[in-house]
């Protein structure tokens, strides 16, 4: 089991989610985050004082999936979330040792 974490543009959330759903990724957890990377921030001003808004709104999707599906899912995410401009985001893959479905107590792959 692996956890795929992707950080994408907010405007791409619905498209990515819908595509993943169609490909059988049923469960995912979404967080509204702010992030910085290569993408430039913006300057803002308040009553004459300038400040930097360099953490821009992003959306983080986390989904725990069977290891063998990782590559396919990465491809799908790239396809939907890519605009080609800086700020498109990242995908990270990390290990997960166990999963539990609270409702039934099922463990491992059956819980996904």
């Amino acid at each position: 089991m692996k956890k795929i974490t992707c950080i994408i543009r907010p405007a791409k959330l619905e498209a990515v989610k819908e595509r993943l759903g169609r490909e059988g990724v049923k469960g995912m957890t979404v967080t509204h985050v702010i992030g910085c990377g290569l993408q430039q921030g913006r300057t803002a001003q308040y009553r004459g004082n300038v400040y930097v808004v360099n953490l821009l709104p992003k959306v983080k999707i986390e989904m725990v999936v069977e290891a063998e599906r990782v590559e396919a899912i990465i491809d799908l995410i790239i396809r939907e979330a890519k605009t080609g401009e800086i700020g498109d985001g990242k995908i990270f893959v990390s290990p997960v040792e166990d999963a539990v479905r609270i409702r039934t107590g099922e463990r491992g792959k059956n819980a996904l």
Partner: protein
Amino acid sequence: MTEMAIDTIWVLLASFLVFLMHAGFTMVETGFTRAKNAGNIIMKNFMGYSSGCIVYTIAGFAVMFGVTRGGLFGADGFLARGEFAHLGLLVPLPAFLIFQTVFAATAATIVSGAMAERTRFGAYLVYNVGITAFIYPVVGHWVWGGGWLAQIGFIDFAGSTVVHSVGGWAALTGAWILGPRIGKFSADGSPNAIPGHNIVLGALGVFILWFGWFGFNPGSTLSGLDLTIAQIALNTNISAAAGAVMAMAFSWLRYGRPDVGLTLNGALAGLVGITAGCAVVDLAASVLIGAGAGILIILGVEFIEKVLRVDDPVGAVAVHGVCGVYGTLMVGLFATEGGLFYGGGTGLLLVQAAGVLAVAAWTVPTAYLLFKAIKATVGLRVPAREEEEGLDLGEHGIEAYADFVKRNTQPLAG
């Protein structure tokens, strides 16, 4: 002396109420659009009113109420200088001027809602000068300044046409030239929901507008001694109520659940609808006019979005344009003197229709030229990247809600 004081107090208080409508417009428009554009919307409304006051005082008032040139427009009394004795006012000139000023700014501000979330701030300022100095005052002259529509007996007591449909037509023209917000229409042309960010603000705005309308309609007697103010207030209120109730019921029927946003719009529809006739129809007619407006607003929103494919985020065209026209025509049916249903024949109805058409024929082309000229010079629309990030950051460098975690996502069509 006492008489003039009563009239003056009445006109001033009415002006103050109409002024507050600008708070209402601002709240409605802000609430029904996205958080990332809230500061920009405030600025547009706030500047629309403020610069509108200056522009109308300098030029618009003279065009509207100067001595008529062939029934078409006035051309003296610029900078609010002059006696305006030909108006035969019962109140001091400053009272009349402030009342007309707050009205003028109302016509202008309607457009801002239809063009929300994608218009350059500078472009909006230029547009605002055009409508306040010229487009609106000419219509105003025709109807209230002794112009040709007044002479043929056209009745628009408080401005269903003069104020609201002028705003509505200009809004339609502007939103159409501007094009829809990114994501509003799918590739197949079907409209998507772009939910407003604060329905409570929207509701507060509608309450404030309703309150302000008690200055707008009853105040248009320009005299507190004219006791029809009571009937006018009653008609105004019941029409708004009927509009809200019918919009609620009709949205329930049509979409399966009573829709909050459309119900709020329904009250405004009732208010716009009764504005032309509030002084010449009776209580029962007011209920009917309001109820009709409550249905019409929903069909109007659908028509503009699904048939015309124009993106009007707050429904300004349907509320002010469609219901403004509707209300003006209803006078031809329901006026207790001259209305078709009251035995008056079709004469008045035809005059009303003529007025409606004339105002459209004037407003749409002039607004079209104005917006095209702006597009060609300062530019009408913000860049796509700015639209996505929000106009608050792009146009003003601010965050309207700095302490809250926001979503910035867009829902998917169901």
